[in-house]
């Protein structure tokens, strides 16, 4: 090892950027990525607060905390915000920050469009919150099924529609940008099969967004006509058909589940190999399975309608299509386990959340296969079993994955390391709180508790109280993360360019990266996951050993 006299660094290299840049219309994908992160995290905290309020309400069978009138408003906003203002934009946050860096590009393909896509998000969120401030929140649930949505408060419902339209538009603009960037902006040597798997998953996600989101926009525009112009597309009192709305809504909203989980699949596929010190197991299988999920995700929407207006033969088709998704998802889960198996695991916060993601998503996936079965779904549809299932997928899956991603890439974005002890406290509290809050809901649903109710059979009180205690732990678990992130941002140890000894391109530039990402076009001298791979020309040294040498000489 060469010893060089380098002055100890006291702060990460600062790109020529002013703090005001983060509050304005920037075209730098890294600034936009962080804008997305901070904005969506703000809404996560708000929607989480609402969830806590709902769980406190449900600690007793009677409506005595929020009250029956307010409960549905809070319920609707919680669902809408968690989906459209937290998980979906956070996927965009990671994609914005990471994709150009991962493929060696200077920026996204359409930087101005990128900024525009972000700046549709805050107005969408503000609109939703305004409905609460003026005490007219939408109350028809995040699905907003007519006729209920047509008779339960025009102002709140219109604000909901406009908000979701803005957020959907943002999503479409982002999708166009990601697809173009991935196809057109890669450095010359990088084939599609040299891309990190996060890029594959964002490619699949973006294609899904482009196919399905416009249909949601169509449904919402027609719904708004029914609401304010007296048309009867979905209004049964004028001869309209509320079931058509459900078809259009779920044509987007089932794929939306994959729009939320696919980016996280990509993050996990990138995080596990780095901290297991092993190549990802089955690169092509994971890449293709993302595309397969995106395709299959478009032909399963009617499984949300097994007990509504779906004919018997059609239920059978959608059952089979839904079950088949277990195959590509199963391939991913097995590949992740094989990646971890036999590695040299660094059990830091990022890795704990990543492994936690696999095990929690596993439970959500298993109950997902169950609810695909028509006769079983008839029993559990619209019950707490479903609430448990989708929280295992979307919290145990997406949110655990998002936290894994934040712990992993925080050093790259900020230039400083996060505190590991507090990260582990965060993980343990989240893991315990999450399972206490959501596992008993499986049993509640099977036993007879419907979802979206503010009052319930007193026989279910004990299990509900367990859920409430879990949700309070979950709420508290956010605090160590917030304090850790805020403290580490300014005071954390300097990270250096590549603290994890990772091989993907984003780690080959400074942390945080300079404005145009790389001093000169990066060279692709290894595959994204070539950990432990010996190279003949380098005297049988592994890539990591080479990296360590390069680092020491810097």
């Amino acid at each position: 090892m060469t010893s060089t006299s380098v002055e100890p660094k006291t702060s990460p290299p600062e790109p020529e950027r002013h703090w005001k840049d983060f509050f304005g219309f920037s075209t730098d994908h890294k600034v936009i990525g962080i804008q997305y992160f901070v904005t969506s995290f703000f809404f996560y905290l708000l929607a989480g607060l609402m969830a806590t309020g709902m769980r406190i309400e449900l600690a007793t069978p009677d409506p005595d905390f929020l009250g029956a009138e307010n409960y549905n408003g809070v319920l609707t906003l919680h669902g809408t915000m968690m989906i459209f203002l937290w998980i979906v934009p956070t996927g965009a946050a990671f994609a914005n920050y990471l994709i150009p860096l991962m493929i060696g590009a200077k920026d996204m393909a359409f930087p101005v469009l990128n900024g525009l896509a972000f700046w549709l998000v805050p107005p969408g969120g503000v609109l939703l919150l305004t409905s609460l401030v003026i005490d007219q929140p939408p109350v028809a649930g995040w699905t907003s099924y007519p006729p209920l949505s047509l008779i339960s408060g025009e102002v709140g419902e219109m604000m909901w529609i406009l908000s979701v339209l803005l957020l959907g538009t943002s999503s479409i603009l982002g999708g166009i940008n990601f697809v173009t960037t991935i196809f057109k902006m890669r450095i010359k040597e990088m084939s599609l099969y040299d891309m990190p798997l996060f890029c594959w998953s964002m490619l699949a996600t973006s294609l899904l967004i482009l196919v399905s989101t416009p249909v949601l926009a169509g449904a919402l525009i027609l719904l708004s006509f029914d609401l304010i112009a007296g048309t009867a597309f979905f209004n049964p009192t004028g001869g309209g058909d509320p079931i058509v709305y459900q078809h259009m809504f779920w044509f987007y909203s089932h794929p939306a589940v994959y729009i939320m989980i696919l980016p996280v699949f990509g993050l996990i596929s990138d995080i596990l190999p780095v901290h297991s010190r092993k190549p990802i197991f089955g690169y092509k299988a994971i890449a293709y399975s993302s595309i397969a999920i995106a395709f299959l995700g478009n032909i399963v929407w009617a499984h949300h309608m097994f007990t509504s207006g779906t004919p018997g033969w059609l239920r059978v088709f959608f059952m089979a299509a839904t079950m088949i998704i277990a195959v590509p998802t199963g391939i991913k889960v097995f590949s992740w386990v094989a990646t971890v198996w036999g590695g040299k695991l660094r059990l830091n916060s990022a890795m704990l959340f990543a492994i936690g993601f696999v095990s929690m998503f596993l439970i959500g996936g298993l109950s997902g296969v169950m609810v695909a079965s028509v006769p079983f779904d008839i029993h559990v549809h619209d019950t707490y079993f479903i609430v448990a299932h989708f929280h295992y997928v979307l919290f145990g899956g997406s949110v655990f994955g998002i936290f894994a991603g934040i712990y992993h890439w925080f050093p790259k974005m900020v230039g400083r390391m996060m505190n590991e002890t507090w990260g582990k406290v965060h993980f343990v509290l989240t893991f315990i709180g999450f399972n206490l809050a959501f596992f008993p809901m499986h049993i509640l649903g099977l036993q007879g508790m419907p979802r979206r109710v503010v009052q319930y059979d007193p026989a279910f009180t004990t299990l509900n109280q367990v859920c409430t205690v879990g949700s309070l732990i979950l709420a508290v678990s956010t605090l160590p993360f917030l304090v850790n992130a805020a403290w580490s941002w300014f005071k954390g140890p300097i990270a250096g360019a590549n603290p994890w000894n990772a091989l993907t391109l984003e780690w080959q530039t400074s942390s945080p990266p300079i404005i145009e990402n790389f001093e000169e076009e990066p060279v692709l001298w290894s595959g994204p996951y070539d950990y432990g791979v010996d190279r003949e020309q380098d005297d049988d040294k592994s890539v990591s050993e080479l990296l360590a040498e390069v680092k020491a000489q810097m």
Partner: protein
Amino acid sequence: MKLPTSITTLIAGILVTLISLWYGQHHGWMPEAASREAPLVDDLFNMMMTIATALFLLIQGALVIAIFRFRQKPGDNTDGPPLEGDIGLEIVWTAIPVVIVMVLSIYSFEVYNEMGGLDPAASRDPGPQKTAVVPGTAMAATLPGQDKIALGVGASPKQQGNNAMVNVDVLGLQYAWIFTYPDSGVVSGELHVPAGQDVKLNIVAQDVIHAVWIPQFRLKQDAIPGRDTQLRFKPEVTGTYPLICAELCGAYHGAMRTQVIVHTPDEYDEWLQSQIAAKEHGDGLTVAQIMANNDNRLARQTEDWNISPEAIAALHEMPQGMPQGTLHEMHQHL
């Protein structure tokens, strides 16, 4: 003594199988099974639980073992073995879920068919048949020739083509269920059915979408404004069970609950006769009275919630011309 890997794998495999088989049958998560359809669903669920338990133990077990066994040793900064794939292994674990979902799909299809899900009279979608009625508007007429087909769960294959022994018209409206027995004109706020007889519920909704759910029967069907839906089943065990609205229908959705009372056939006849007699004496319940009772119930429930009676009253109004009629008449019109 260290056991060879093949032996430990075999022992682990046997243990996982035994635990899964046992747990799949003894989870105790389902409520009482009180209809002919319920054990069919329960057997399917038990099988899914067995498979799920086995997969959970295998995958979760592998992760937990990896966490303890493959943790990086202090000072060891080398990489793990660079295994990038194994085509044989990948084919095996693609085949496993394929086989599992095929088996589950076929089994689910069988159960669904056995329950009556593919009865032609209940499995086609004729589209909206009529215009729904909102309070204060005139009634729309049923379109001719379209009143035979509904959506939902129909007759089991053995019963297809036969009429159900008991027919009940069900109306869902904010926030009550109203049951009418068309053969006798009896109206009730609770569902009374005889054990061991084929029962058919003809379900309509007046205002918004509701859903009839009887957990102990494992059956659910949405009530959709403008469409006929149905549920056909055979109650088997006498007793009182909840009937719950499962689709968000407004602020008091959680209070939209009533009971199913499964009588012995004799008791059922007795109940029906008593209702007919009461009706003939003018003491029978009308839709208006059921709704009034329901309003009182809601009012009682909401008294402690600081909600004014006016707010409750404003929740719904009776359709014009309806209050003194029976539900069957309402079905005729809806």
